[in-house]
Protein backbone atom coordinates (compact mmCIF):
# COMPACT_ATOMS: atom_id res chain seq x y z
CA UNK A 1 0.00 0.00 0.00
CA UNK A 2 1.22 3.48 -0.86
CA UNK A 3 1.94 5.86 2.00
CA UNK A 4 0.00 8.62 0.23
CA UNK A 5 -3.76 8.83 -0.04
CA UNK A 6 -5.33 9.81 -3.34
CA UNK A 7 -7.93 12.51 -2.65
CA UNK A 8 -10.78 13.55 -4.93
CA UNK A 9 -8.87 16.77 -5.68
CA UNK A 10 -5.78 14.77 -6.70
CA UNK A 11 -7.96 12.67 -8.95
CA UNK A 12 -9.55 15.73 -10.59
CA UNK A 13 -6.14 17.25 -11.22
CA UNK A 14 -4.81 14.06 -12.78
CA UNK A 15 -7.94 13.58 -14.89
CA UNK A 16 -7.57 17.13 -16.22
CA UNK A 17 -3.90 16.63 -17.01
CA UNK A 18 -4.31 13.21 -18.61
CA UNK A 19 -7.54 13.58 -20.48
CA UNK A 20 -8.75 17.17 -20.30
CA UNK A 21 -12.23 18.11 -19.12
CA UNK A 22 -15.55 17.92 -20.92
CA UNK A 23 -16.96 21.41 -21.44
CA UNK A 24 -20.46 20.25 -20.43
CA UNK A 25 -19.31 18.93 -17.05
CA UNK A 26 -18.55 20.81 -13.83
CA UNK A 27 -15.70 18.77 -12.37
CA UNK A 28 -15.64 21.08 -9.35
CA UNK A 29 -19.14 20.06 -8.32
CA UNK A 30 -19.95 16.99 -6.24
CA UNK A 31 -18.92 14.23 -8.61
CA UNK A 32 -18.02 11.41 -6.19
CA UNK A 33 -20.92 9.25 -7.30
CA UNK A 34 -21.16 10.37 -10.92
CA UNK A 35 -20.22 7.72 -13.46
CA UNK A 36 -16.95 8.50 -15.26
CA UNK A 37 -18.69 8.06 -18.59
CA UNK A 38 -21.12 10.86 -17.62
CA UNK A 39 -18.13 13.01 -16.71
CA UNK A 40 -16.89 12.55 -20.26
CA UNK A 41 -14.19 9.97 -19.49
CA UNK A 42 -14.13 6.75 -21.48
CA UNK A 43 -12.15 3.62 -20.65
CA UNK A 44 -9.07 4.90 -22.47
CA UNK A 45 -9.10 8.09 -20.41
CA UNK A 46 -9.28 5.92 -17.30
CA UNK A 47 -6.36 3.76 -18.42
CA UNK A 48 -4.30 6.89 -19.06
CA UNK A 49 -5.30 8.28 -15.67
CA UNK A 50 -4.54 5.08 -13.77
CA UNK A 51 -1.16 4.75 -15.44
CA UNK A 52 -0.29 8.26 -14.24
CA UNK A 53 -1.45 7.39 -10.72
CA UNK A 54 0.68 4.24 -10.77
CA UNK A 55 3.72 6.34 -11.59
CA UNK A 56 3.02 9.12 -9.12
CA UNK A 57 2.00 6.88 -6.24
CA UNK A 58 4.26 3.93 -6.90
CA UNK A 59 1.43 1.42 -6.95
CA UNK A 60 0.24 -1.20 -9.41
CA UNK A 61 -3.36 -1.20 -10.62
CA UNK A 62 -4.89 -3.97 -12.66
CA UNK A 63 -6.37 -2.68 -15.95
CA UNK A 64 -9.57 -4.71 -15.66
CA UNK A 65 -10.15 -3.65 -12.07
CA UNK A 66 -9.58 -0.01 -12.99
CA UNK A 67 -12.24 -0.15 -15.69
CA UNK A 68 -14.67 -1.80 -13.27
CA UNK A 69 -14.48 1.21 -10.90
CA UNK A 70 -17.02 3.37 -12.68
CA UNK A 71 -17.29 6.31 -10.24
CA UNK A 72 -14.70 8.50 -8.51
CA UNK A 73 -15.75 7.06 -5.11
CA UNK A 74 -15.15 3.49 -6.31
CA UNK A 75 -11.92 4.49 -8.01
CA UNK A 76 -10.53 6.22 -4.89
CA UNK A 77 -11.44 3.19 -2.80
CA UNK A 78 -9.64 0.97 -5.26
CA UNK A 79 -6.48 3.07 -5.35
CA UNK A 80 -6.31 3.77 -1.62
CA UNK A 81 -6.95 0.14 -0.83
CA UNK A 82 -4.20 -1.16 -3.06
Amino acid sequence: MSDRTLTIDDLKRILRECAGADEQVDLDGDILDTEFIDLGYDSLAMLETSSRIEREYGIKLDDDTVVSATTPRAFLALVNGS
Partner: protein
Amino acid sequence: MTTQVVVTGLGVIAPNGLGLGQWWAATLRGVNGIAPVSRFDASGYPARLVGEVKDFDPAEHLPSRLLPQTDHMTRLALVAADWALADAKVDTSTLPEYGMGVVTASSAGGFEFGQRELQNLWSRGGKYVSAYQSFAWFYAVNTGQISIRNGMRGPSGVVVSDQAGGLDAVAQARRLIRKGTPLMVTGGVDGSTCPWGWVAQLASGRLSTAVEADRAFLPFDARAAGHVPGEGGAILVLEDAEAARRRGASTVYCEIAGYAATFDPRPDRRRPPGLRRAITLALEDAGMSPEDIDVVFADAAAVPELDRIEAEAITAVFGSHAVPVTAPKTMTGRLYAGGGSLDLVAALMTIRDGVIPPTVNVTPAADYGLDLVVGKPRDLPVQAALVLARGYGGYNAAIVVRSIG
Protein backbone atom coordinates in the same frame (compact mmCIF):
# COMPACT_ATOMS: atom_id res chain seq x y z
CA MET B 1 -28.13 8.97 -64.51
CA THR B 2 -25.02 9.18 -62.34
CA THR B 3 -25.39 11.18 -59.13
CA GLN B 4 -23.87 14.63 -59.44
CA VAL B 5 -21.45 15.28 -56.58
CA VAL B 6 -20.74 18.87 -55.55
CA VAL B 7 -18.47 20.67 -53.10
CA THR B 8 -20.40 22.78 -50.60
CA GLY B 9 -17.87 23.61 -47.89
CA LEU B 10 -14.14 24.30 -47.61
CA GLY B 11 -11.76 24.45 -44.66
CA VAL B 12 -8.10 25.36 -45.13
CA ILE B 13 -5.09 25.32 -42.82
CA ALA B 14 -1.91 26.18 -44.68
CA PRO B 15 1.58 27.53 -44.01
CA ASN B 16 0.60 30.80 -45.68
CA GLY B 17 -2.81 31.27 -44.11
CA LEU B 18 -5.30 30.01 -41.52
CA GLY B 19 -8.80 29.70 -42.92
CA LEU B 20 -10.06 29.84 -46.48
CA GLY B 21 -10.19 33.64 -46.82
CA GLN B 22 -6.82 34.39 -45.28
CA TRP B 23 -5.06 31.60 -47.20
CA TRP B 24 -6.61 32.50 -50.56
CA ALA B 25 -5.75 36.18 -50.20
CA ALA B 26 -2.17 35.27 -49.26
CA THR B 27 -1.95 32.82 -52.15
CA LEU B 28 -3.03 35.44 -54.68
CA ARG B 29 -0.47 37.84 -53.22
CA GLY B 30 2.22 35.17 -53.56
CA VAL B 31 2.97 35.03 -49.84
CA ASN B 32 5.62 32.39 -49.17
CA GLY B 33 4.99 30.20 -46.10
CA ILE B 34 8.36 28.46 -46.33
CA ALA B 35 10.85 29.23 -43.54
CA PRO B 36 13.44 27.53 -41.33
CA VAL B 37 12.05 24.66 -39.22
CA SER B 38 10.88 25.87 -35.81
CA ARG B 39 9.11 22.80 -34.42
CA PHE B 40 12.44 21.11 -33.66
CA ASP B 41 16.15 21.86 -34.00
CA ALA B 42 16.88 20.99 -37.63
CA SER B 43 20.32 22.58 -37.71
CA GLY B 44 22.03 19.19 -37.84
CA TYR B 45 19.99 17.90 -40.78
CA PRO B 46 20.70 18.38 -44.49
CA ALA B 47 17.19 19.85 -45.06
CA ARG B 48 16.26 22.80 -42.85
CA LEU B 49 13.30 24.53 -44.50
CA VAL B 50 9.64 23.70 -44.11
CA GLY B 51 6.18 25.12 -44.62
CA GLU B 52 4.89 25.20 -41.04
CA VAL B 53 1.40 26.29 -40.03
CA LYS B 54 1.95 29.40 -37.94
CA ASP B 55 -0.02 31.10 -35.15
CA PHE B 56 -2.14 28.03 -34.46
CA ASP B 57 -3.12 27.60 -30.81
CA PRO B 58 -5.08 24.34 -30.58
CA ALA B 59 -6.63 25.25 -27.21
CA GLU B 60 -8.28 28.21 -28.90
CA HIS B 61 -10.15 25.90 -31.27
CA LEU B 62 -10.57 22.51 -29.58
CA PRO B 63 -11.89 21.24 -26.22
CA SER B 64 -9.28 20.22 -23.63
CA ARG B 65 -10.63 16.66 -23.78
CA LEU B 66 -9.16 16.28 -27.29
CA LEU B 67 -5.72 17.77 -26.67
CA PRO B 68 -3.99 14.92 -24.78
CA GLN B 69 -5.12 12.40 -27.39
CA THR B 70 -4.23 14.19 -30.62
CA ASP B 71 -1.14 14.74 -32.74
CA HIS B 72 -0.48 18.22 -34.11
CA MET B 73 -1.73 17.27 -37.59
CA THR B 74 -4.97 15.78 -36.18
CA ARG B 75 -5.67 19.05 -34.38
CA LEU B 76 -5.17 20.89 -37.66
CA ALA B 77 -7.51 18.42 -39.39
CA LEU B 78 -10.24 18.74 -36.76
CA VAL B 79 -10.20 22.51 -37.03
CA ALA B 80 -10.17 22.44 -40.84
CA ALA B 81 -13.18 20.10 -40.70
CA ASP B 82 -14.98 22.46 -38.30
CA TRP B 83 -14.34 25.32 -40.72
CA ALA B 84 -15.48 23.30 -43.74
CA LEU B 85 -18.75 22.34 -42.03
CA ALA B 86 -19.29 25.93 -40.93
CA ASP B 87 -18.62 27.10 -44.49
CA ALA B 88 -21.19 24.60 -45.77
CA LYS B 89 -23.61 25.77 -43.06
CA VAL B 90 -24.30 22.14 -42.20
CA ASP B 91 -26.04 21.55 -38.90
CA THR B 92 -24.93 17.96 -38.33
CA SER B 93 -27.41 17.51 -35.47
CA THR B 94 -30.32 17.78 -37.90
CA LEU B 95 -29.01 15.21 -40.41
CA PRO B 96 -29.16 11.40 -40.06
CA GLU B 97 -25.89 10.27 -38.48
CA TYR B 98 -25.56 7.31 -40.85
CA GLY B 99 -26.02 9.65 -43.81
CA MET B 100 -22.71 11.40 -43.16
CA GLY B 101 -19.30 9.78 -43.61
CA VAL B 102 -15.62 10.73 -43.53
CA VAL B 103 -12.77 9.75 -45.86
CA THR B 104 -9.43 11.45 -45.38
CA ALA B 105 -5.97 10.89 -46.76
CA SER B 106 -2.84 10.51 -44.69
CA SER B 107 0.79 9.85 -45.54
CA ALA B 108 2.26 9.10 -42.15
CA GLY B 109 -0.31 9.39 -39.36
CA GLY B 110 0.59 11.21 -36.14
CA PHE B 111 4.36 10.97 -36.36
CA GLU B 112 5.24 13.61 -33.77
CA PHE B 113 2.95 12.01 -31.17
CA GLY B 114 4.39 8.60 -32.05
CA GLN B 115 7.97 9.80 -31.72
CA ARG B 116 7.30 11.24 -28.27
CA GLU B 117 5.72 8.04 -27.02
CA LEU B 118 8.45 5.86 -28.48
CA GLN B 119 10.99 8.08 -26.73
CA ASN B 120 9.05 7.53 -23.51
CA LEU B 121 9.13 3.79 -24.12
CA TRP B 122 12.88 3.63 -24.77
CA SER B 123 14.02 6.05 -22.11
CA ARG B 124 11.54 5.49 -19.26
CA GLY B 125 9.63 2.29 -19.88
CA GLY B 126 6.23 1.05 -21.01
CA LYS B 127 4.21 2.62 -18.21
CA TYR B 128 5.24 6.06 -19.43
CA VAL B 129 3.63 5.51 -22.84
CA SER B 130 0.32 7.30 -23.32
CA ALA B 131 -2.75 5.08 -23.66
CA TYR B 132 -3.71 7.39 -26.55
CA GLN B 133 -0.73 6.17 -28.55
CA SER B 134 -3.02 3.24 -29.37
CA PHE B 135 -4.68 5.40 -32.02
CA ALA B 136 -3.08 8.85 -32.10
CA TRP B 137 -0.29 7.74 -34.46
CA PHE B 138 -2.57 5.87 -36.82
CA TYR B 139 -3.24 6.77 -40.47
CA ALA B 140 -7.01 6.68 -39.98
CA VAL B 141 -6.94 8.87 -36.89
CA ASN B 142 -8.13 12.07 -38.59
CA THR B 143 -11.08 10.25 -40.11
CA GLY B 144 -11.97 8.74 -36.74
CA GLN B 145 -11.66 11.96 -34.78
CA ILE B 146 -13.63 14.01 -37.32
CA SER B 147 -16.34 11.36 -37.39
CA ILE B 148 -16.59 11.21 -33.57
CA ARG B 149 -16.52 14.99 -33.10
CA ASN B 150 -19.29 15.55 -35.63
CA GLY B 151 -21.43 12.48 -35.02
CA MET B 152 -20.88 11.05 -38.49
CA ARG B 153 -21.44 7.30 -38.50
CA GLY B 154 -21.75 6.64 -42.23
CA PRO B 155 -19.13 4.86 -44.34
CA SER B 156 -15.64 6.07 -43.52
CA GLY B 157 -12.04 5.26 -44.29
CA VAL B 158 -8.55 6.48 -45.01
CA VAL B 159 -6.48 6.51 -48.18
CA VAL B 160 -2.69 6.23 -47.91
CA SER B 161 -1.07 7.15 -51.22
CA ASP B 162 1.16 10.09 -50.28
CA GLN B 163 0.37 13.30 -52.18
CA ALA B 164 -2.06 11.52 -54.52
CA GLY B 165 -4.15 10.63 -51.47
CA GLY B 166 -5.46 14.19 -51.20
CA LEU B 167 -7.30 13.54 -54.48
CA ASP B 168 -7.92 9.81 -54.03
CA ALA B 169 -9.82 10.48 -50.80
CA VAL B 170 -12.11 12.96 -52.54
CA ALA B 171 -12.77 10.39 -55.25
CA GLN B 172 -13.59 7.75 -52.65
CA ALA B 173 -15.98 10.21 -50.99
CA ARG B 174 -17.64 10.77 -54.36
CA ARG B 175 -18.01 7.00 -54.78
CA LEU B 176 -19.64 6.67 -51.36
CA ILE B 177 -22.08 9.49 -52.16
CA ARG B 178 -22.99 7.71 -55.38
CA LYS B 179 -23.63 4.58 -53.33
CA GLY B 180 -26.16 6.49 -51.23
CA THR B 181 -24.49 8.51 -48.46
CA PRO B 182 -25.72 12.09 -49.01
CA LEU B 183 -22.86 13.94 -47.31
CA MET B 184 -19.14 13.20 -46.96
CA VAL B 185 -16.35 15.08 -45.24
CA THR B 186 -13.10 14.49 -47.10
CA GLY B 187 -9.65 15.78 -47.99
CA GLY B 188 -6.32 15.61 -46.27
CA VAL B 189 -4.39 17.42 -43.57
CA ASP B 190 -0.90 16.13 -42.98
CA GLY B 191 2.42 16.95 -41.40
CA SER B 192 5.28 15.22 -39.63
CA THR B 193 7.66 18.02 -38.75
CA CYS B 194 9.61 16.14 -36.11
CA PRO B 195 13.05 14.45 -36.22
CA TRP B 196 11.60 10.98 -36.85
CA GLY B 197 9.34 12.24 -39.63
CA TRP B 198 12.18 14.31 -41.05
CA VAL B 199 14.52 11.35 -41.32
CA ALA B 200 11.81 9.30 -43.02
CA GLN B 201 11.29 12.08 -45.56
CA LEU B 202 15.02 12.52 -46.15
CA ALA B 203 15.20 8.85 -47.10
CA SER B 204 13.21 9.63 -50.25
CA GLY B 205 16.18 11.64 -51.54
CA ARG B 206 13.74 14.26 -52.76
CA LEU B 207 14.09 16.96 -50.10
CA SER B 208 15.66 20.26 -51.03
CA THR B 209 18.77 21.09 -49.04
CA ALA B 210 18.67 24.76 -49.99
CA VAL B 211 18.78 27.27 -47.15
CA GLU B 212 17.10 30.25 -48.80
CA ALA B 213 13.31 30.10 -48.70
CA ASP B 214 12.87 31.65 -52.14
CA ARG B 215 15.29 29.25 -53.83
CA ALA B 216 14.37 25.99 -52.16
CA PHE B 217 11.36 24.64 -54.05
CA LEU B 218 11.57 25.39 -57.77
CA PRO B 219 9.47 22.99 -59.88
CA PHE B 220 9.87 23.27 -63.68
CA ASP B 221 12.94 25.46 -63.15
CA ALA B 222 16.40 24.52 -64.40
CA ARG B 223 17.54 24.91 -60.78
CA ALA B 224 15.00 22.37 -59.43
CA ALA B 225 16.65 20.26 -56.73
CA GLY B 226 13.93 18.69 -54.62
CA HIS B 227 10.99 19.92 -52.61
CA VAL B 228 10.40 21.54 -49.25
CA PRO B 229 7.96 19.60 -47.06
CA GLY B 230 5.05 21.34 -45.41
CA GLU B 231 2.14 20.75 -43.07
CA GLY B 232 -1.56 21.48 -43.27
CA GLY B 233 -4.04 20.89 -46.04
CA ALA B 234 -7.75 21.16 -46.68
CA ILE B 235 -11.01 19.51 -45.74
CA LEU B 236 -14.00 19.60 -48.08
CA VAL B 237 -17.70 18.90 -47.66
CA LEU B 238 -19.05 16.89 -50.59
CA GLU B 239 -22.74 16.32 -51.16
CA ASP B 240 -25.13 14.69 -53.52
CA ALA B 241 -26.22 17.73 -55.55
CA GLU B 242 -29.89 16.86 -55.02
CA ALA B 243 -29.43 16.48 -51.27
CA ALA B 244 -27.57 19.79 -51.15
CA ARG B 245 -30.48 21.47 -52.94
CA ARG B 246 -33.00 19.89 -50.57
CA ARG B 247 -30.97 21.06 -47.58
CA GLY B 248 -30.88 24.54 -49.05
CA ALA B 249 -27.08 24.64 -49.24
CA SER B 250 -26.09 28.27 -49.64
CA THR B 251 -22.88 27.74 -51.60
CA VAL B 252 -22.12 25.19 -54.27
CA TYR B 253 -18.52 25.68 -55.34
CA CYS B 254 -18.20 23.12 -58.09
CA GLU B 255 -18.88 19.66 -59.32
CA ILE B 256 -16.32 16.87 -58.95
CA ALA B 257 -16.69 15.99 -62.62
CA GLY B 258 -13.97 13.44 -63.30
CA TYR B 259 -11.31 11.36 -61.62
CA ALA B 260 -8.77 8.70 -62.40
CA ALA B 261 -5.87 7.04 -60.63
CA THR B 262 -3.05 5.09 -62.24
CA PHE B 263 0.07 3.39 -61.02
CA ASP B 264 3.54 3.73 -62.51
CA PRO B 265 5.21 0.64 -63.95
CA ARG B 266 8.20 -0.82 -62.18
CA PRO B 267 11.35 1.16 -63.05
CA ASP B 268 12.80 -1.82 -64.93
CA ARG B 269 9.79 -2.02 -67.26
CA ARG B 270 9.73 -0.11 -70.49
CA ARG B 271 6.13 1.01 -70.22
CA PRO B 272 5.56 4.78 -69.89
CA PRO B 273 4.75 6.50 -66.57
CA GLY B 274 1.06 6.55 -65.59
CA LEU B 275 0.37 10.27 -65.24
CA ARG B 276 -0.69 10.93 -68.82
CA ARG B 277 -3.13 8.05 -68.67
CA ALA B 278 -4.56 9.42 -65.41
CA ILE B 279 -5.23 12.76 -67.14
CA THR B 280 -6.86 11.14 -70.15
CA LEU B 281 -9.02 8.84 -68.03
CA ALA B 282 -10.12 11.68 -65.72
CA LEU B 283 -11.20 13.74 -68.75
CA GLU B 284 -13.05 10.73 -70.11
CA ASP B 285 -14.74 10.20 -66.75
CA ALA B 286 -15.86 13.85 -66.86
CA GLY B 287 -17.06 13.50 -70.45
CA MET B 288 -14.80 16.39 -71.42
CA SER B 289 -12.02 17.03 -73.89
CA PRO B 290 -8.69 18.81 -73.29
CA GLU B 291 -10.04 22.06 -74.79
CA ASP B 292 -12.61 22.21 -71.98
CA ILE B 293 -9.89 22.56 -69.33
CA ASP B 294 -8.93 26.16 -68.54
CA VAL B 295 -6.12 25.57 -66.05
CA VAL B 296 -3.96 22.74 -64.68
CA PHE B 297 -2.76 22.56 -61.07
CA ALA B 298 0.49 20.64 -61.33
CA ASP B 299 1.91 18.08 -58.93
CA ALA B 300 5.18 20.03 -59.23
CA ALA B 301 7.71 17.60 -57.74
CA ALA B 302 10.75 19.85 -58.36
CA VAL B 303 12.80 16.74 -59.11
CA PRO B 304 14.04 17.21 -62.70
CA GLU B 305 13.06 13.75 -63.94
CA LEU B 306 9.61 14.00 -62.35
CA ASP B 307 9.09 17.53 -63.66
CA ARG B 308 9.92 16.26 -67.13
CA ILE B 309 7.46 13.38 -66.85
CA GLU B 310 4.71 15.77 -65.73
CA ALA B 311 5.48 18.37 -68.40
CA GLU B 312 5.45 15.65 -71.06
CA ALA B 313 2.13 14.30 -69.82
CA ILE B 314 0.53 17.76 -69.84
CA THR B 315 1.87 18.76 -73.26
CA ALA B 316 1.00 15.35 -74.74
CA VAL B 317 -2.64 15.83 -73.78
CA PHE B 318 -3.04 19.59 -74.22
CA GLY B 319 -0.24 20.61 -76.57
CA SER B 320 2.74 22.86 -75.95
CA HIS B 321 1.89 26.10 -74.08
CA ALA B 322 -1.79 25.32 -74.73
CA VAL B 323 -3.18 25.58 -71.18
CA PRO B 324 -2.12 27.68 -68.17
CA VAL B 325 -0.34 25.58 -65.54
CA THR B 326 0.30 26.63 -61.96
CA ALA B 327 1.79 25.36 -58.69
CA PRO B 328 0.74 27.49 -55.72
CA LYS B 329 2.36 24.80 -53.55
CA THR B 330 5.61 26.69 -54.21
CA MET B 331 4.32 28.91 -51.34
CA THR B 332 3.59 26.09 -48.89
CA GLY B 333 5.91 23.23 -49.74
CA ARG B 334 4.54 19.79 -50.51
CA LEU B 335 1.92 18.97 -47.91
CA TYR B 336 1.84 15.25 -48.73
CA ALA B 337 -1.75 14.03 -48.22
CA GLY B 338 -2.74 17.65 -47.60
CA GLY B 339 -1.25 18.82 -50.89
CA GLY B 340 -3.69 17.37 -53.38
CA SER B 341 -6.65 18.59 -51.32
CA LEU B 342 -5.28 22.10 -50.96
CA ASP B 343 -4.65 22.28 -54.72
CA LEU B 344 -8.21 21.13 -55.29
CA VAL B 345 -9.48 23.98 -53.13
CA ALA B 346 -7.23 26.38 -55.05
CA ALA B 347 -8.86 25.13 -58.26
CA LEU B 348 -12.34 25.74 -56.85
CA MET B 349 -11.41 29.26 -55.78
CA THR B 350 -9.87 29.91 -59.19
CA ILE B 351 -13.18 28.97 -60.82
CA ARG B 352 -15.13 31.10 -58.32
CA ASP B 353 -12.99 34.23 -58.69
CA GLY B 354 -11.70 33.93 -62.26
CA VAL B 355 -8.10 34.33 -61.19
CA ILE B 356 -5.28 31.78 -61.31
CA PRO B 357 -2.87 31.89 -58.34
CA PRO B 358 0.80 32.17 -59.23
CA THR B 359 3.74 29.83 -59.01
CA VAL B 360 6.32 31.78 -57.00
CA ASN B 361 10.11 32.03 -57.24
CA VAL B 362 10.26 29.90 -60.41
CA THR B 363 11.89 30.79 -63.72
CA PRO B 364 10.35 28.21 -66.05
CA ALA B 365 12.78 26.12 -68.04
CA ALA B 366 11.82 26.73 -71.67
CA ASP B 367 12.15 23.15 -72.86
CA TYR B 368 9.24 21.91 -70.73
CA GLY B 369 6.75 23.63 -73.05
CA LEU B 370 4.50 24.76 -70.22
CA ASP B 371 2.60 28.04 -69.94
CA LEU B 372 3.45 28.37 -66.25
CA VAL B 373 1.66 31.18 -64.40
CA VAL B 374 4.59 32.76 -62.59
CA GLY B 375 5.15 35.77 -60.39
CA LYS B 376 1.64 37.18 -60.26
CA PRO B 377 -1.91 35.85 -60.55
CA ARG B 378 -3.56 35.73 -63.97
CA ASP B 379 -7.12 36.91 -64.49
CA LEU B 380 -8.98 34.41 -66.61
CA PRO B 381 -12.55 33.14 -66.63
CA VAL B 382 -12.27 29.49 -65.63
CA GLN B 383 -15.05 26.95 -66.08
CA ALA B 384 -13.08 23.78 -65.44
CA ALA B 385 -9.76 22.83 -63.89
CA LEU B 386 -7.56 19.75 -63.79
CA VAL B 387 -5.71 18.95 -60.57
CA LEU B 388 -2.78 16.52 -60.57
CA ALA B 389 -1.07 14.78 -57.67
CA ARG B 390 1.57 12.10 -57.48
CA GLY B 391 2.62 10.01 -54.51
CA TYR B 392 5.98 8.50 -53.68
CA GLY B 393 6.06 4.94 -54.93
CA GLY B 394 4.19 5.40 -58.20
CA TYR B 395 0.77 6.85 -57.41
CA ASN B 396 -0.86 9.19 -59.94
CA ALA B 397 -4.21 10.90 -59.45
CA ALA B 398 -6.14 13.44 -61.52
CA ILE B 399 -9.39 15.24 -60.73
CA VAL B 400 -11.45 17.45 -63.01
CA VAL B 401 -13.65 20.09 -61.35
CA ARG B 402 -16.28 22.00 -63.26
CA SER B 403 -18.38 25.02 -62.40
CA ILE B 404 -22.08 24.51 -61.89
CA GLY B 405 -24.17 26.01 -64.67
